[in-house]
């Protein structure tokens, strides 16, 4: 606590920021974005472009073998160096974005889909339904994702689809618990009772109140989940259970570079940086979104 002699009444001039200096009007919502968030947005945008039209970002062919230029360190002609077959690593990372992001999005979508079905059933079902689903989810929790992946690869062979299913099912139990908790909270809320008192049928209450309100916080969790899924998938690929070569999927790149780690550090570091950068950026955006959404509700 400090004592200051002059205290202005509310509404007294405190200096209005901005407006006077620049000629160009910057919208308030743009100005309120922090630099870190803007950077994260740029990174995510870069990888999304790489996913859709990779040729825009590189002129090199990611699959072109050049045995005269194997294991070149980063230079002006190959900014991230080349691999053991002389392929440009930057081009491979750019082209690998499609499969990696697909795995991230697909696994999150699958995991969420399963989780929403289970969570809503458990949250709205009677004691028995809830008990069976909740215990089942706990059993799934105890099952390591990597073991699950091993099982799927053994049965279906390594592919993008296998990886999506393995990571998707592996992450589902965590989401399912979250969904169940949300559904329970909304189910017992005042506005659901108010809707019952107005005589709305149960199905319509679920559709109009319970479902959307329970899902709202999950939007943010989903953005965090995409980054997490990519990290999981990379881990699986690193063990050699991922997408088979010559795919430039990021996890596969890590796995391929493993044998040359003492001679060519960039084969491990560059894909690793891509994974970390993308996940970090997506997480930053997710948190920003979360603050926006929750701030909007509390204000």
């Amino acid at each position: 606590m400090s004592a200051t002699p002059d205290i202005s009444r509310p509404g007294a001039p405190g200096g209005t920021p901005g407006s006077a200096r620049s000629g160009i009007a910057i919208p308030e919502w743009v100005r309120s974005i922090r630099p870190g968030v803007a950077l994260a947005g740029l990174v995510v945008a870069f990888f999304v472009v790489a996913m859709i039209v990779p040729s825009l970002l590189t002129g090199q062919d990611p699959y072109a073998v050049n045995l005269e230029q194997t294991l070149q360190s980063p230079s002006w002609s190959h900014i991230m160096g080349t691999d053991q077959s002389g392929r440009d690593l930057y081009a491979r990372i750019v082209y690998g974005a499609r499969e990696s992001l697909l795995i991230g999005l697909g696994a999150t979508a699958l995991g969420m889909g399963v989780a929403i079905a289970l969570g809503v059933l458990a949250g709205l079902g009677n004691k028995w339904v809830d008990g069976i689903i909740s215990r089942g989810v706990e059993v799934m929790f105890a099952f390591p994702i990597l073991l699950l992946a091993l099982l799927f690869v053994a049965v279906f062979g390594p592919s993008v689809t296998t990886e999506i299913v393995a990571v998707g099912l592996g992450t589902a139990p965590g989401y399912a618990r979250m969904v169940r908790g949300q559904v329970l909270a909304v189910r017992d809320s005042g506005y659901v009772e108010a809707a019952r008192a107005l005589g709305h049928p149960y199905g319509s209450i679920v559709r109009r109140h319970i479902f959307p309100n329970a899902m709202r916080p999950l939007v943010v969790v989903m953005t965090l989940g995409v980054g997490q899924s990519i990290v999981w998938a990379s881990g699986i690929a690193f063990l050699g259970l991922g997408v088979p070569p010559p795919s430039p999927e990021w996890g596969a790149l890590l796995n391929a570079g493993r044998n040359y780690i003492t001679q060519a550090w960039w084969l491990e570091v560059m894909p690793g940086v891509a994974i970390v950068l993308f996940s970090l950026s997506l997480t930053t955006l997710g948190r920003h979104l979360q603050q926006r959404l929750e701030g909007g509700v509390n204000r």
Partner: protein
Amino acid sequence: MSTAPTPITTGGLRPADPENDLLRVENLQVGFGEKRNVTEIVHGVSFSLAPGECLAIVGESGSGKSVTARTLVGLTGGSSHVSADRLEFGGRDLLSFKDRDWRGLRGKDIGFILQDALVSLDQLRPVGKEIDEALRLHDWGTKKEREERVIELMELVGIPEPAVRAKQRPYELSGGLRQRALIASAIAMDPQLIIADEPTTALDMTVQAQVLEQLQQAKARGKALILISHDLAVVSQLADTVAVMFDGDILEYAPAGQLFSRPENAYTQRLIEAIPSADSRGARLSPVVRSHSLGEARKYETTDAPVLKAERLLKKFRGPDGVDRTVVNDVSFELKQGETLGIVGESGSGKTTTARLALALLEVDGGGVTLAGEEWSGLPERERRKRRNDISVIYQDPLSSFDPRWTVEQIMLDALGEGYDKKAARRVRIAELLEMVGLEPEHLRRRPLQLSGGQRQRVAIARALGPQPRVIVCDEPVSALDVSIQAQVLDLLADLQQELNVSYLFISHDLGVIHHISDRVLVMSDGKVVEFGDADDVLLRPHHPYTQKLVASLPVLERPKPTGPRPFGRPPRAAGPEFTEELAA
């Protein structure tokens, strides 16, 4: 309350007495914020206090009363700016105090009692330890002496079996015992000044009376007391002087007797008039005048048969220990069209459960409810749904009863009964509902979060009126509102009953509110009906000992009888003037 307050009135106060006064505050200003962006909350208030005196600071939420109190113990927080011409306690200048000085002062010279004992006490620590800490912090006595002092203190504040209670944790104690434990720790060091910030707000009526008694005794022992409250009736029990605060200013500062009998400031007068009680029955509480009437179009006929009838209701809940607890036990009542039945009782008496049984949102375990003469509680939900238009509900906390994603317009659309298939018809009906509750069309686009507490409750009332119900169950609809807003909402409910002849099942813990609005009253305790009858019979001439205790514990504000009839309101029950536009104007 939007009307500009009139300037401060301080008639009849004794002049400041520098020799004797314990606390002297002159032109105190408190602001919050960073460097150049300070918002002033308290705009220069002055008061003084001598030993054995009680000063009450009253005001509605946002008036700055709590900030003023916290300033006196240095608890305003890091971003605050305090300045004053004089801020002295016992001859010491509080403005020069550093954190260390404050720590030495708090608890030792000034005891501070917070509003909510459940939050203020450490859940994991026995209350005896809590009280002991107040002593230990100021190095009082040896361990053994402190133990004795704790028991002595607990006895002093009227905690039975202090030796047992001292070992119990807050969640094992009732609300009243918790609040008394908090008082015990505040007075442990025998401070010269006790500041109590809304000490009884969260408490039941009978417990409130006990706590006020404790404060009264402290005052009798020569302690100075500052009582912060929104409740004028509570304040009138203790205060020697009263300061009425509004928006950071003291509007009226006068001896209690004078302030309550001859309030000079218009705002004080309105505050006093806004308190519902036995005397205010049939009169308006707020100065807001109703501008329109609905005419006879939607009025329900008064009939002899009850519109809502409950017979021998029984409801049990299974506790976590697997033992059934009877929450509602053999409750019966009848509600006629156009009548208000008040249900009053303390927390845990089963009044809200009774309301939910009447709404058939809970299934009965015994007995039954009929609605408009037909079976209601016994029907399957599928059948009840068709008739839910006949009965609706208003909750204590309107905000949590609205879907947070929805605008007021969506809420209203959702509440329309049958027969509004066309868009134009819906729009007309919503406009009509809004006008009935005194809201503007511009409110439709807003979300409940962007509305004030009073406006939210109006939306809730409009929603309840949407299906054109015969009965509205009001579950503590004004408990969360400021006195002046409460007055407006009670007036609105009375007006609507007048115009629509709708029935209310009105639930409240506040005897004044219940007496003001009810035709008949049902008193509940421990799930049972202890007394039932005409409001005046039950509340003015109670027969059952429990009702007598309840009525006796109600702080009554002695105030002037209204001179002449007030504009208009609910007429006396037997025969009153017909509602007309002229009367409203």
